[in-house]
């Protein structure tokens, strides 16, 4: 049977101009966002960027000031939280301390009126999924942080909500455990095919997990796209700076008479490509450290003194002072010769490796 075309293309979640303000304070400007079924979307941004507000409005815990919200094409803007078919994994898990692990996981099923036999079966399955079958009778406080996190995940996956929201779920774990749990979450996502919206301020986590990243800043969406696109083609200086290490040269556009365009920066005139650039417009050029070479090899060159040499295991980073208070980070792979501290060196990059962004 053929599904109707409008249903087939329907996004799982459609955020249509959702906005929130508390009095004069704007927590989220009108925002549009569509999440596809089975997608893993990350809301990434610094604190106060509006990502948690957006998540809470999707969950129904916070009512929007304006805008509408559709799940599977149904308008759910006014639906109270307990009737919305969403799951929320809280930052500190929010496991019920007076209920056992099995009772915690069974809670959403009980609310949905399942028979106790069904509950038992599905809870056992969920426990199996997160490998905690042997801890069913324990209370949350008797578990380690990682185990509590798994119970929280199981409690959310067990009732197969339309959308699963995760609010910095790994924030309370140490680095090693966090990386391990990232794999488990990714694995759960693959196994269940759930639609997941994940909030984090950790860019590495966002890059590792997401199908798409929705980068937020100042209560609005800054850029949205797959991780590699956001990394390689940032649209703003903020996006370039927030994700990965970036060298950002700010300056003014100078359109030459010969058609060549330059950016006049504190580090010198840099050749840029671009159509329709207004003369004297303020722009910024982003160059990732791995794209900068030592020595002269192209049109774009800057010179400076080596101010710091940082050994980072798989690579060595040079901090080169190219202008007063302006340092460029350069990646040098192991085995390559290193300059000395204080040495005056030339840095260059291929024009296509640089990205022109709004400052």
């Amino acid at each position: 049977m053929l599904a109707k075309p409008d249903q087939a293309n329907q996004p799982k979640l459609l955020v249509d101009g959702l906005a929130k303000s508390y009095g004069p304070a704007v927590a989220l400007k009108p925002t549009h966002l569509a999440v596809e079924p089975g997608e893993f979307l990350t809301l990434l941004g610094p604190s106060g960027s509006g990502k948690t507000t957006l998540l809470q409005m999707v969950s129904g815990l916070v009512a929007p000031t304006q805008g509408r919200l559709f799940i599977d094409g149904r308008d759910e803007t006014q639906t109270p939280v307990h009737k919305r078919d969403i799951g929320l994994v809280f930052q500190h898990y929010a496991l019920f301390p007076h209920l056992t692990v099995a009772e915690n996981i069974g809670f959403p099923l009980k609310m949905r009126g399942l028979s106790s036999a069904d509950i038992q079966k599905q809870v056992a399955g969920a426990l199996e999924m997160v490998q905690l079958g042997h801890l069913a009778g324990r209370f949350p406080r008797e578990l380690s942080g990682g185990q509590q996190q798994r119970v929280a995940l199981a409690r959310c996956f067990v009732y197969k909500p339309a959308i699963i929201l995760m609010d910095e779920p790994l924030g309370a774990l140490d680095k090693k455990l966090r990386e391990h749990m990232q794999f488990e979450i990714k694995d759960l996502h693959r196994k269940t095919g759930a639609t997941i919206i994940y909030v984090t301020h950790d860019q590495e986590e966002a890059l590792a997990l997401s199908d798409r990243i929705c980068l937020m800043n100042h209560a609005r969406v800054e850029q949205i796209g797959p991780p590699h696109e956001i990394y390689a083609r940032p649209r703003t200086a903020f996006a370039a700076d927030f994700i990965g290490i970036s060298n950002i040269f700010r300056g003014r556009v100078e359109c030459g008479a010969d058609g060549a365009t330059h950016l006049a920066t504190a580090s010198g005139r840099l050749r840029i490509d671009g159509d329709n650039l207004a003369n004297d417009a303020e722009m910024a050029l982003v160059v990732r450290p791995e794209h900068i070479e030592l020595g002269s090899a192209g049109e774009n060159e800057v010179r400076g003194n080596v101010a710091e040499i940082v050994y980072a295991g798989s690579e060595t980073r040079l901090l080169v002072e190219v202008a007063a208070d302006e340092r460029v980070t350069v990646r040098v792979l192991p085995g390559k010769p290193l300059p000395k501290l204080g040495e005056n060196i030339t840095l260059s990059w291929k024009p296509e490796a640089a990205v022109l962004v709004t400052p």
Partner: protein
Amino acid sequence: MTTTAVSHAVSPAPRRFRFGPLWLAAPGLAFLAVFFLVPVARLMGLSLEDADTGALTMAHYARIFDTDVYFRVLLITFRIAALTTLFSLLFGYPLAYWLARLPEHRRGTMILLVMVPFWTSYLVKSFAWVIVLGRTGVINQIGMGTGLLSEPLELLHNEFGVMVGMVHAMTPLAVLTMLPVMTGIDRRLTQASGTLGATPAKGFWLVYFPLSLPGAAAAGLLTFISSLGFFIVPALLGGRQQTMLAQLIIVQVQEILNWAFAGALAALMLTTALVTCWLYDRVFGLSSLSGEPSDGKSGRKGVLRGLGLAVLDALAGVSSAVSTGANRVLGQAVSTRMLAFYCALMFAFLMLPTLVVLPIGFTSSQFLEFPPPGYGLDWFRTYFTSDLWVAATIRSFGVAFATAIVATAIGGFAALALARSNSRWRGLIFALFLAPMIVPRIVIAVGLFYLFAQMGLVATDVGLVIGHTVLALPFAFVAIAAVLKSYDWRLDQAAATLGANRVQALRFVTVPLIKSGLTAAFLFAFITSFDELTVAIFVSGGVKTTLPKQMWDDMILQLNPTLAAVSVVVFIVVTTLLLAAERLRRSSQA
């Protein structure tokens, strides 16, 4: 295996005796041993002795159960205490729930509407109810005036009057006891239950309520124990049929001088209190009394837990259906405001009666009329020109001041000792310092009276200060312990590395930082002593009375507007000190 383990074990270095931190609690322990444990134990002992021969006998106990009058008093006491507990919890729970969910700064303000009635003298509160409920009282006059009543209602000197007074007196205690547990419940847990599909009613019964239960039970425990030893309210608002155990004890000691029988009555009261405590500890653990989130025993497995969860399930189902229906009939907006409306009514119930007394203090009439026919300062003039009243007032201030200093010093050192010690005696010592709050005051007072009679301390200011210090110690101790809980002891280590010895570290680092807690302790101890009546009834004899004792004597004899004028002064003094203490306590936590 075993042998290697033993041979590798490091033998403990010969330990030099160290002056450990627990020694700081020694003065307090000695004080409580002499003026609390010994007198109470002695009183218990008296109840088992034959007054003439000193031989062991159960005759006094037999007399209680054999004499119809006494046995009835026992039953009435339990009945009133149980009913008071029940109603205080029922009325107090929604109020505490509402307060706990307020944003912190607003809760700080609203909680004063519970704190003020809590600390307002029981004498003033009871006096207020006499004025409100009397035959010519506020309610009857309004009823008659508007024609709603054809003849005045009998609201006083019966069980209704006692229950109103008792519930009014105990609800603040219940609210303040359960509030810390409720504010400790993570808001995200109820949110989580919502995202998992629970209606608000189900979320409440299945998640919030069970987590708040230790607090509610602690409130029940304290209200029950306090009600057991009550005599002010039943004496002023009740009739002969509502005589309670504490009144009987007072009569036995003051009029009949039958120490042994009074001891037996006190022992019954104390035993009931301790058994209630023991039961509570078995089910919830005593630690929930200090507002710590329940862990350990409340999560126990077994039949009781299964039964409890099943009951909650049923409650959740019913109330979810009811609230869905109510929402449909009343509309969402109305049902969410119902709780706020209820709380406004409760605040009115708690505050208004006392506020009725204030204008009466300024009446120009010879009678306790409300509203006063005219205003003047006559009764304040009577108050301030009466040698008896002025002397009582001065004595109350003096005794309260001395009590506050002693209690703060003893309690402060004890709190310091317990905060720094890891000794296994810690829990026991902690319990001992709180014990004067658990043991009914009347038991302590009678025990002290007996001791003071032998030491020649009856009708002396020293005796009063000692007695009041015993009662004020828990309040001072708790106030200081609370501040020390959040104190960063690394600062003392820092001071030590910078060359300060222990005394210098205490004087220049610790004390300045916990100053607000110390002042709050001082003020709470001051208030406790300032409106203390139980000890004063026995210990302040003859002309050497305190303000509450003088009020009590007047109230028993004849109600008059001077009492209203005195009440105004007491209310203002206590409320001012309370607000100051609260302000300090809060600034220390910020």
